């Protein structure tokens, strides 16, 4: 549109101002925690009296934190792979299948996103008690899969719906079998969506804390669980440092996902 609304300047400035203020309000907690992690005060004085990397040194020399880091990463990577594969097949079924109750099923897929996470924690805990999965790696993966799958499915379904089915049909008429057309044409065309699904699934598992608290055993603690349990004893700057690492990784992955999305063919 060419309209530039010179005349609505005042209202526009006020609205833009509110938008900036709200944005600052939302960022404030994260900024505080990042600053505290570099602050020299043991008691989280703010603003910090001076700057140090001391807490990061502490963090990377503590085998417990490193073990949790490894646990979180292993679980999240497995979850990302399995969620993307299962999500891909489920998304094909959802967007291409034509069966009764398809819309209902689509709503079911979103359940874990809107359900209170504490209910999931209770339910999985009760279920896993019986299956003796609490405290096991496979238990973590299954629990986080329930949390992560909806994100994977949304990302892949969006990509599949944005992909013109006629292109796959064209590949079939060109001589490719239906499966060959999917592998050689559809999958490469939606690769940004698949990548997004993997990243979001990874983050959903990596950042999850409530379910993980119930799943965890002393030997198997994810990073967020260790932050949580440490925090209940003591608010130390090491926690600010771990949190900052967590945030940095999340931002990094989001930037990669955004970059991938932008780079996809229009």
């Amino acid at each position: 549109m060419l309209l530039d609304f010179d005349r609505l300047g005042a209202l526009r400035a006020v609205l833009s101002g509110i938008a900036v203020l709200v944005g600052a309000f939302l960022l404030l907690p994260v900024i505080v925690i990042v600053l505290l992690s570099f602050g020299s005060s043991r008691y989280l004085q703010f603003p910090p009296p001076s700057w140090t990397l001391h807490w990061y040194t502490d963090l990377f020399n503590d085998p417990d934190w490193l073990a949790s880091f490894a646990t979180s990463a292993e679980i999240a990577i497995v979850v990302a792979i399995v969620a993307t594969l299962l999500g891909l097949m489920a998304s094909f079924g959802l967007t291409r299948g034509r069966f009764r109750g398809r819309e209902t099923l689509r709503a079911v897929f979103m359940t874990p996103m809107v359900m209170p996470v504490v209910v999931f924690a209770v339910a999985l805990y009760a279920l896993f008690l019986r299956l003796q999965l609490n405290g096991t790696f496979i238990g973590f993966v299954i629990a986080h899969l329930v949390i992560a799958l909806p994100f994977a499915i949304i990302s892949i379904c969006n990509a599949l719906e944005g992909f013109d089915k006629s292109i796959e049909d064209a590949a079939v008429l060109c001589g490719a079998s239906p499966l060959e057309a999917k592998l050689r044409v559809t999958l490469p065309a939606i690769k940004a969506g698949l990548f997004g699904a993997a990243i979001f699934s990874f983050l959903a598992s990596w950042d999850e804390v409530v379910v993980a608290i119930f799943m965890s055993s002393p030997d198997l603690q994810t990073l967020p669980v260790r932050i949580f349990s440490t925090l209940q004893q003591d608010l130390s700057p090491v926690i600010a440092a771990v949190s900052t690492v967590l945030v940095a990784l999340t931002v990094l992955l989001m930037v990669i996902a955004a970059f991938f999305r932008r780079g996809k063919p229009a």
Partner: protein
Amino acid sequence: MTRPFLSVQGIEKTYGAVVAVQDVTLDIAEGEFITFLGPSGSGKSTTLYAVAGFLEPTKGDILLNGKSLLDVPSNKRNIGMVFQRYTLFPHLSVADNVAFPLRVRRRPKAEVDARVAAMLKLVRLESMADRMPAQMSGGQQQRVALARALAYNPPILLMDEPLSALDKKLREEIQFEIKRIHNETGVTIMYVTHDQEEALRLSDRIALFNAGRIEQIGTGHDLYEKPASRFVAGFIGNSNFFEGTLSGADRSIRLPDGTAIRGVSLDRLAPAKEDVAIMIRPDHFRLHDGSEAAAMLRGTVTDTTYLGEYTQLAVTTSWGAPLSVRLPQHDPAVSVQKGQPITLTCAPSNVRVF
């Protein structure tokens, strides 16, 4: 009679209670350019999809060189197709798109390269071999799609409104290209469109679809000059319809104001019919010059519009029916004024009765 190249025999397709096409039968000769023309939902695309193998007809058969295609899956039919939407593979370059059907068929690399070069030359996009589809205009993409569809030398090329997303100038340019490519390759083309001008411009024959059936098949000249039904007359070209009656032993036609029209062919009419619809095209009227004429209409000019190549008159006949008349610019009638009475004539051979 020699065996037809492609034969569509009594195709019917129903979705539950909805009938998409019904009793569609036509034979197509090798190298022919046949167009399926009709309004949307008339069954023209459904018939094309049945040939492509994207849907299975409820009844009927489709034979290529006398052999049924129905049990052959789409990817084994060896048919080329250009779709309405842009269907280039977005992650492949232009050259790789054109090479795709050959690579699927595992042809040797040298053959693939030669064939890709030949096809890009055919559609005049040699210089764009390395472009990605997203970097090309819609018109260029459809030309690449055409090259891809022809890459494996299919005996039949299907085109499903391939130009409908393009603007008028570009559409005419690519119509010209398609006609040239049809001449150069001799491929048999089945073309779907809802644009009558496009159909007239391109086709050897036109099958006019209406409500799931073929209303008439013939050359553009046949459909325009000898429409088989009122629907055909209304769909192809502009037309005026008005009521009339057949009367007397000579079965002459009378207009509502009593004027008789003589010498009109009644061949296509059911013998017992008395109330008829009369059709005259806007450009078949001439200003009456006072001489004796077989068909005369009196009316009043209600509006004149200058349209460059011709002048359009809105006329109300003496019995109150609206009439659209187009007179060429050099006709003396261009000086006709709004509100003026007018007498129009029309050659009896240009009057159709249904």
